[in-house]
């Protein structure tokens, strides 16, 4: 599957990470799935992942455009340049095997991912699939005997930071190591032994990938092609030593335990220093292969990159208006990630010019944004985030298994009231699992159950829906026109005539996330008005997670949590496919529908982007009508940075400035330090 998920899913693995962070920030959950692919990040809260696809268009929101920077002057005349980024939590490792395996926390990714090169990448803002270390696009997959193969040419002259050439052997070594050691996490997602057989270095600049079956988009383009690559000449002896340990697990532990000293890097930055609890410092990579390359993105959708005098173009005709034009050039000589365990303190530090940008995965709260907005030297930006909060149903139990019941619940929930009133427009309602910000994949035409109805309309509608499905009440709920309120229903009985038993909604407590807690209480109130006996159990995140992911009896009814998402929406399949419904899977509610599974399988195997999009739309319509989740709302992300000291090439992008830290063409190459 691709992507990963975030959120709470992660429950498992990342729950740790998540939870923690969350308590500080508020949000939702991040996830990481065990089947992730690219980069995931689990963040606290909500999380994220990002990577992605092809041609995604992102909807730009609000944001004040900033002129493209004329970076490239990084080694300015005034001596070394620094910038300091406020960071909510410490990293946990500098070891890449750990970082992309069990230690895949959001913060490790933000700080360190940019150090590693990959064959392919995603373009800025639009997330088009474009070459990075590759010289042009790799070939399509062709069948060759028992295998499907793909051949890629590498850019000539790309070097590691120590001056050694980045060659095909580095790719072979990286993939071999992941397969030999059976590395978990993102390694296993991108280098899935079920699909990937081996790699071959045809010559120093040609790599051939051997697959056991035809790789779909999520396996190749958004999988292996974007795998981070490590330096063979540095790692080979260390890996050999770790491989000499006893059992497989001991070998892996030995590998994770290595603290690499002076590891050569291929990305824009090179690790310099980690002072645990205080800061992480990176230095500019003197041999960055993309240094001084220029990129133009055209309104027509075309992408053009010029590096070393050669120009590569893709996605159409390079005429017409240029949307985005930038030079990749690492501006700062030193980048520090300075850790602040209190968000309030970090914002004070930003105002006091101690830091240049505060990287908060969940963005700033409304109050903090107010605090910095309009301060001289500080710019705030707002962007859509790729994630959503939802009400989930345990479809293994009655009455949640009944679509009519789920439709009634969806009808009762006034998302517009929640977002406009309770959340003060700090969120917007969503009706499908792909957020609007992920424009290319977002299906805006899904059914919007209950939208626009007032309380009276909702209660009447629900009486009808449940009545048609055979439910009865001892006292039917009714709109009381005099009191302008609902006279609550009582004694709801299911179509078999049995009383509906008391149901429970698990949701984070007010101490953890006041917004979700408040939403849960409102939902409890609305459902009770309709006579549905439900109680919101507001509790700790660390109580909810084990109940959803670790209880073999699936002893829960409904729950409210959130997901951070990848751009390529393979979560459409993973969250709801029957094969994810066993204990600990992503399909927590146990949704199982043969028709849906067939559509989802086809989507995952699809190799053509346009066709995949059609299928994604179909999946979304299916979900929005059948409602295994009632999606509630998505939130924008607010960020602030010191525009008097740093300038970003663009700030209008899904997830905002922090998006820079989640891709292989990272932050330094796109910013100017003043």
């Amino acid at each position: 599957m691709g992507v990963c998920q975030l959120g709470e899913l992660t429950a498992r693995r990342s729950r740790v990470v998540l939870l923690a962070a969350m308590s500080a920030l508020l949000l939702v959950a991040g996830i990481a799935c065990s089947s992730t692919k690219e980069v995931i990040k689990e963040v606290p809260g909500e999380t994220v992942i990002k990577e992605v696809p092809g041609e995604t268009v992102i909807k730009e929101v609000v944001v004040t455009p900033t002129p493209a920077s004329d970076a490239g002057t990084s080694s300015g005349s005034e001596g070394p340049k620094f910038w300091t980024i406020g960071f909510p939590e410490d990293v946990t490792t500098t070891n890449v095997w750990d970082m992309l395996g069990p230690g895949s926390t959001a913060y490790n990714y933000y700080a360190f991912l940019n150090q590693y090169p990959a064959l392919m990448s995603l373009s800025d803002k639009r997330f088009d699939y474009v070459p990075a270390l590759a010289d042009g696009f790799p070939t399509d997959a062709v069948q060759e005997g028992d295998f499907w193969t793909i051949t890629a040419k590498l850019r000539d002259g790309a070097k590691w930071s120590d001056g050694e050439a980045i060659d095909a052997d580095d790719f072979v070594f990286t993939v071999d190591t992941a397969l030999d050691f059976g590395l978990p996490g993102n390694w296993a997602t991108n280098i899935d032994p079920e699909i990937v057989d081996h790699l071959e270095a045809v010559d120093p600049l040609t790599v051939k990938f051997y697959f056991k079956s035809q790789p779909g988009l999520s396996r190749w383009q958004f999988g292996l092609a974007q795998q981070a690559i490590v330096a063979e000449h540095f790692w080979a002896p260390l890996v050999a030593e770790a491989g000499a340990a006893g059992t497989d697990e001991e070998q892996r532990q030995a590998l994770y335990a290595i603290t690499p000293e002076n590891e050569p890097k291929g990305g824009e930055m090179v690790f310099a220093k980690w002072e645990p609890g205080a800061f992480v410092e990176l230095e500019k990579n003197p041999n960055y292969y993309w240094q001084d390359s220029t990129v133009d993105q055209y309104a027509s959708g075309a992408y053009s990159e010029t590096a070393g005098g050669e120009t590569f173009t893709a996605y159409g005709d390079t005429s017409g208006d240029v949307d985005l034009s930038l030079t990749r050039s690492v501006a700062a000589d030193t980048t520090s990630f300075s850790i602040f365990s209190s968000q309030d303190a970090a914002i004070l530090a930003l105002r006091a010019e101690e830091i240049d940008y505060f990287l908060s995965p969940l963005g700033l709260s409304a109050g903090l944004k107010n605090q910095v907005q309009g301060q001289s030297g500080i710019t705030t930006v707002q962007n859509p985030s790729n994630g959503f909060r939802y009400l989930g149903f345990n479809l293994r139990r009655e009455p949640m298994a009944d679509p009519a019941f789920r439709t009634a619940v969806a009808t009762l929930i006034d998302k517009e009231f929640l977002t406009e009133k309770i959340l003060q427009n700090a969120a917007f309602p969503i009706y499908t699992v792909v957020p609007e910000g992920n424009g290319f994949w977002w299906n805006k035409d899904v059914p919007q159950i209950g939208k626009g109805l007032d309380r009276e309309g909702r209660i009447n509608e629900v009486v009808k829906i449940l009545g048609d499905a055979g439910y009865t009440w001892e006292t039917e709920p009714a709109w009381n026109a005099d009191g302008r309120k609902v006279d609550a229903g009582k004694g709801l009985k299911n179509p078999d005539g049995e009383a509906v038993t008391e149901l429970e909604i698990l949701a984070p407590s007010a101490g953890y996330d006041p917004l979700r807690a408040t939403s849960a209480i409102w939902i409890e109130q609305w459902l009770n008005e309709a006579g549905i006996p439900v109680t919101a159990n507001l509790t700790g995140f660390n109580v909810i997670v084990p109940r959803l992911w670790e209880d073999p009896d699936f002893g829960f009814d409904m729950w409210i949590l959130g997901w951070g998402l990848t751009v390529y929406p393979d979560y459409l399949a993973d969250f709801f496919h029957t094969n994810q419904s066993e204990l600990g899977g992503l399909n927590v509610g146990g949704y199982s529908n043969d028709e849906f599974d067939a559509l989802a399988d086809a989507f995952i195997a699809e190799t053509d982007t346009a066709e995949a999009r059609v299928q994604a739309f179909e999946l979304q319509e299916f979900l929005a009508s059948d409602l295994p989740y009632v999606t509630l709302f998505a939130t924008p992300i607010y960020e602030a940075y010191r525009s008097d000291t740093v300038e970003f090439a663009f700030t209008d992008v899904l997830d905002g400035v922090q998006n820079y830290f989640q891709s292989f063409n990272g932050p330094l190459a796109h910013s100017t330090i003043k």
Partner: protein
Amino acid sequence: MRDNSAIESGLRPLEPLWRLRLRNTARRTREQWRLFARTRVGLIGLGVIAIFGLMAVAHPLLMRYVWDVSTYHPVIGFGFEETSHPAPPSGRHLLGTDPVGRDILSMLMFSARAEFTLGLVAAVVTVVIGTGVGALSAYFGGWVDTILMRVADIVIMMPTIALLVVLGSLWNLSFLTLALVIGGLSGFGATAVIIKSQALTIVVKPYIEASRGAGAGHLHVIMVHIVPNLLPIAFLYMMFTVTAAIFSEAVLSFFGILNVRMSWGIMIHTAQSGGYLLSGLDFWWLLFPAGLSITLLSGSFYLVGRALDQLVNPRLRSR
């Protein structure tokens, strides 16, 4: 604190006994009150507590007769008439609204009741456990004493917040569990040690010996002769327990560890998670009412405790 009034009353045999007792009690109370009032800090504390008590009592009445439930409900109320939230104080919302549109005054008053309940439960638990442990330990001595006092040592040295944080990560902490834990900690810890030392002075009194000699059981002696004499000092330590309970609730709520729907700590947490904690005076109504309430109420119980200390501990009376 035994009194010698029995001798005086013997001089005036004409009055019925109950009236004498009443008069005695009244006189003693007046005397105690006079001493208490002289401490001043105790009076200040008592005054503050009374104000919060009034708030707690008034809330249900206001909700019933004055305030519209859908607007003023402390958990799911919403100020429909304000254009944006948090809204500053106005005629409709005397202390403004919070970031999710709830009336601050209503939340504050509602929570006052919860805090008193929390404090009271914790205090009662403290008294029961503290008195029990202290009395048993002093009466029986020996290994009972050793074990109970070593446990007390641990509890005393234990940082409460650290313990509660860990408990919160293992279990789901609600108001009730919090009250029980704090009451238990206080009861097994400092209160037990102090009550025990008081009890030691009692178990050596001749009437204990006499009672035993007359065939009274251990339980009877403890309950009838020892415990009543320990109550004044136990009452004193109740006050400190209340302080600890209110303070812990706020801190745990602030860090998101406690599972309650509304409290002063949750109010501050809501302001903090909305990002208003350092907005200075711009959003004062989000912070000051709840923040000051926590400090004032818990501090006041502490002051009352100190003042009572002067009564219970004669050596501290003024020169």
